[in-house]
C-alpha cells in the first residue's frame, strides 16, 4: 500500500510577531526578536503575545468566558489555520491532535491560600486548604485547566469532530502530534487533520515549572535577552507566547478540492534519549537524518531549529547538527519568537512551510547562523527539547507548476 503524500495547506500562527502569514514573514526577515517584555515577570524575560480580537475566531462571548488565555489562544490559532486552508466545510471529519500543557491556575487564590497555610501546623493547614479551595475556586476554572479541553474547545467553537487526541509532554508532544497526524493521513485513516498547540508565556505557574527544571534564562546572570546560540552567560529559554496549528492533507485530497499547498511534509522522526553518557541522544536523530538525506539537494541545507537555549539540549543539538557532514544554514526560532513548549514544534513546521511557500529564509541573527543564498527548496526542522525528546522533520517546497 503506497503511503499518501502530505501537504500543509493551512497554517494558523500567533506569536509576539503578531498573527498570520504576513506578520510572521516580516518577523522572519527581521534581525531582532519580535517583542520582548523584560519587566513583568523579572528576572525572566518573555516574548508577549499580541492583543487578539477574539470575536473574529471565537464569536460567542459565552465560549470566551469558558476559557482562560491559553485555551483562547489555541482556539483562536486553530481557527486561523482552518481559514488559511479554506477548510471550514471539512471540519466534521477533520482529525484533531493537540499538544497541550496545563491551563492557568488561579494565581491570586494560590497566593492567598499559601499565605494562610504557612503559619499553621500541618493538620490545621490541611483543613484550611479544603475550606479555602472549596470556597474560592471558580467552578468553570477546572474546565479551563484541563489539558484536553483545548481540543474540546476547538471542537465546540470550530466544529472539528473527527478523531480527537491530546498529547502531553512539552515539546515532544508537539512533535509526536505532527508525526501521528501525518501517519494517519499517510495510511489513509483520515484525509485532513488539524494539529498544533499553544503556549501562554505570561504565566507565573509555568515559570515555576520550567525554572525548577533549570530550563529558563535568568536575567540576574546575564542580559535579559541574547540569541539562543549566544547564551553562554545564562543558558536557558526565553519563553514566548505562541500558538501554531497546521492543516495537513493528503496531496490527493488537497488537489481534489483545488487547495494549494504551502509545502510538502516529508519524513518526521521523534525519539527520546535519556541524555546520559550511555544514551546521549545523538544516534536516533543521526539515523533519522540518514533517511532524509537522500531526498535533499546538494549545497547548504536550511534548518529551522527549535533550540530553546537550555544548556544540555543546545550542546546536543549543536553536536548532532555538526555531525551531519553537510553545510547548514541554521535559524533558531527561539531567537525570533521565543520558546513555546508544546507549540514550538508545530510553530517551526508552520514557519518552515511559510518560508518554502514564499521562497524566503530568515536573516541571520548571530554568527552561528550562516547566510543562505536563494530560496530554500528543502528545510529541516529540528526539535531538541529543553528536557527530553528529540525530533526532526523534512519539508520540501511545492513548485508552482505542481500546484492545483
Amino acid at each position, binding site marked *: 500500500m503506497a503511503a499518501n503524500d502530505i501537504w500543509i495547506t493551512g497554517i494558523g500562527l500567533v506569536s509576539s510577531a503578531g498573527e498570520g502569514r504576513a506578520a510572521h514573514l516580516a518577523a522572519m526577515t527581521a534581525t531582532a526578536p519580535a517583542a520582548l517584555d523584560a519587566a513583568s515577570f523579572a528576572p525572566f524575560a518573555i516574548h508577549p503575545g499580541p492583543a487578539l480580537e477574539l470575536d473574529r475566531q471565537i464569536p460567542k462571548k459565552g465560549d470566551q468566558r469558558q476559557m482562560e488565555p491559553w485555551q483562547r489562544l489555541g482556539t483562536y490559532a486553530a481557527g486561523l489555520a482552518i481559514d488559511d486552508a479554506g477548510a471550514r466545510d471539512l471540519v466534521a471529519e477533520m482529525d484533531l491532535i493537540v499538544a497541550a500543557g496545563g491551563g492557568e491556575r488561579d494565581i491570586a487564590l494560590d*497566593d492567598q491560600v499559601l499565605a494562610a497555610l504557612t503559619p499553621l501546623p500541618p493538620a490545621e493547614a490541611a*483543613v484550611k486548604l479544603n475550606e479555602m479551595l472549596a470556597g474560592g475556586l471558580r467552578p468553570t476554572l*477546572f474546565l479551563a485547566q484541563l*489539558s484536553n479541553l483545548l481540543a474540546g474547545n476547538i471542537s465546540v467553537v470550530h466544529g472539528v469532530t473527527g478523531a*480527537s487526541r491530546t498529547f502531553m509532554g512539552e515539546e515532544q*508532544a508537539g512533535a509526536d502530534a505532527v508525526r*501521528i497526524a501525518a501517519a494517519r493521513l499517510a495510511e489513509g485513516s483520515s484525509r485532513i487533520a488539524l494539529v498544533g498547540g499553544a503556549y501562554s508565556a505570561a504565566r507565573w505557574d509555568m515559570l515555576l515549572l520550567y525554572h*525548577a527544571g533549570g530550563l529558563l534564562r535568568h536575567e540576574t546572570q546575564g542580559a535579559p535577552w541574547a540569541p539562543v546560540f549566544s547564551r553562554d552567560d545564562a543558558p536557558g529559554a526565553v519563553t514566548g507566547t505562541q500558538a501554531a496549528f497546521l492543516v495537513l492533507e493528503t496531496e490527493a485530497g488537497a488537489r481534489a478540492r483545488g487547495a494549494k499547498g504551502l509545502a510538502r511534509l516529508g519524513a518526521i522522526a521523534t525519539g*527520546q534519549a*535519556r541524555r546520559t553518557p550511555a544514551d546521549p541522544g545523538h544516534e536516533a536523530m543521526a539515523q533519522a537524518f540518514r533517511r532524509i538525506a537522500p531526498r535533499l539537494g546538494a549545497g547548504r541545507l536550511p534548518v529551522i531549529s527549535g533550540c530553546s537555549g537550555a544548556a544540555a539540549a543546545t550542546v546536543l543539538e549543536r553536536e548532532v547538527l555538526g555531525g551531519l557532514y553537510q553545510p547548514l544554514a541554521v535559524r533558531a526560532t527561539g531567537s525570533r519568537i521565543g520558546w513555546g513548549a508544546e507549540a514550538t514544534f508545530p510553530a517551526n513546521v508552520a514557519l518552515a512551510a511559510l518560508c518554502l511557500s514564499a521562497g524566503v529564509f530568515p536573516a541571520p541573527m548571530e554568527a552561528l547562523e550562516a547566510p543562505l543564498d536563494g530560496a530554500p527548496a528543502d528545510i529541516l526542522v529540528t526539535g531538541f527539547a529543553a528536557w527530553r525528546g528529540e525530533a526532526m522533520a523534512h519539508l520540501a517546497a511545492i513548485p508552482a507548476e505542481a500546484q492545483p
Partner: protein
Amino acid sequence: MSRFTDHAGRPLVAVTGIGIVTPLGIGAADNWAALTAGRSGIRRITRFPTDHLRTTIAGTVELPGEDTGAMTSSQRVARYATLVAEEALAQAGFGPGNFPGPLMLGMPPVETEWPYRLRLAARAAPAAPLYPALIEAAAKWDEMYELAAFAGIGEKLAERFGTRGAPIAISTACATGGSAIQLGVEAIRRGEAEAALAIGADGTVQPEALIRFSLLSALSTRNDDPAKAARPFEKSRDGFVMSEGAACLVLESLEHARARGAKVLGLIRGCGEKSDSFHRTRSNPSGEAIIRAMRNAIADAGLEPEAIGYVNAHGTSTPENDKMETLGLRAVFGEGAPPISSNKSMLGHTLSAAGAIEAAFSLLTIRDQLLPPTINHEEPDPAITLDVVPNVARAAKVAHVLSNSFGFGGQNVCLVISGETS
C-alpha cells in the same frame, strides 16, 4: 485475509499481558474475583481531612507497606503504572528493560501540588510565599520538575521497561485509557512496531481535584453509605465517585505473539472515536457523537452490531451519562441490545485509567464467559430499559465486547474486544 490479518488486511492485534490495580486490589486475578463477586471498592476518604467537602468518599488504592496518601498524584500514577506494567509484561513473557515497541501512556494532567507548594514556601521563607519568591526557591529542583512536567512519568516508565522511541502521554479525559490502547493498536497496524505497551493510570484523589469535580456538581454526595454511592443506570444515581488505579495491556501483532509462542488473551479488533462539538461537559442530546463512536468501532472491527454479545458501559452513575448512553445503545443495537454493565458501580470512576481497566475486564469477561454485574441496582430507572446485569454476575456466551469511554470535552472512544478464536 490471512490468519494474522483482519478484514481490512491489517495486522490483527493481540493482547498477551494484562495488569490491573484498583481499589479492589492488586493484580488482575484479585480484581476480577472482587469484581465478579460484586464487591465495592468505595470508602470514606482517609487520605486527607474531609472537612468542608461536599463529597467525602472515593476509591483509593492501598498498597502494602506504601503510603499512597503521602504521594502526589504524579507519584501515584507512576507507581500504579509501574505495578500494572510489571504484571502485564511478566504474563506476556517479556524480560525486563527491553520491550519491542512504544509506550502509550494514558494519564491525567499533573502539576505542582500543595505539598510541594508548602515546601517551596518553607524554602522561600522569610520571604512571603508569593509566586516570584516560590520560583526562586524552585531553582533546579529536578525532582519537582519531573513530577510536574507532563513528560516526566513516561520518561521514567520508558527507561524502566525499555520501550522504543518517544513515549506518548495522552489525555482525552475519561476516555484516556481507551485512547492509549487505540494509539498502540494503530502503531501496530501501521507496522511501526510489532508491539506496544498501553497503560491507563490515574491517581487524582487529592483535595484540589476532588473539589474541582465537586464544583462541577459531577460527584455523588451519598457519603453515608460509600459502597452504595456508585449506582450506574439506577433511578437514584446522583453522580460519579472519584477513584483511581491503572491497567496495562501488552499489545502485539498476532503474528508476533504466535511466532514467539505467547499465550493470546484476546484481540483488540476495532477502535472507534468521534468527538462532540455540542458542549464541554454534556453530550449532544441527539447522542450523535457517542452513537458514531460505537458504530465506528464496530465497523473498524469488520462486524455488525448483532455480533456484540456484551457492552462494558461507560456507565458513570451521573444522571446525564447513563441516560445518554442508553439512548446511544438503543440507537446502535435497537430492541436487540445486548446486556451491559458498569464496572464503575464497584470501582467508581478511575478517570484516565477507566478505559484501560475496563478493556482489561472486557478481556477477562470473554475468557471466563462471565458478565460482571452492575451493583446497587435497587430501583430501576424507567427511562433505562436495558439489561444492566443487575447486582449479580452472570454466565453468558460472549465472542465480542464493546467497551465504551466517553470524556469531558466531547472525546469519545469505543473498543471492540474479541476472543482469540473469534
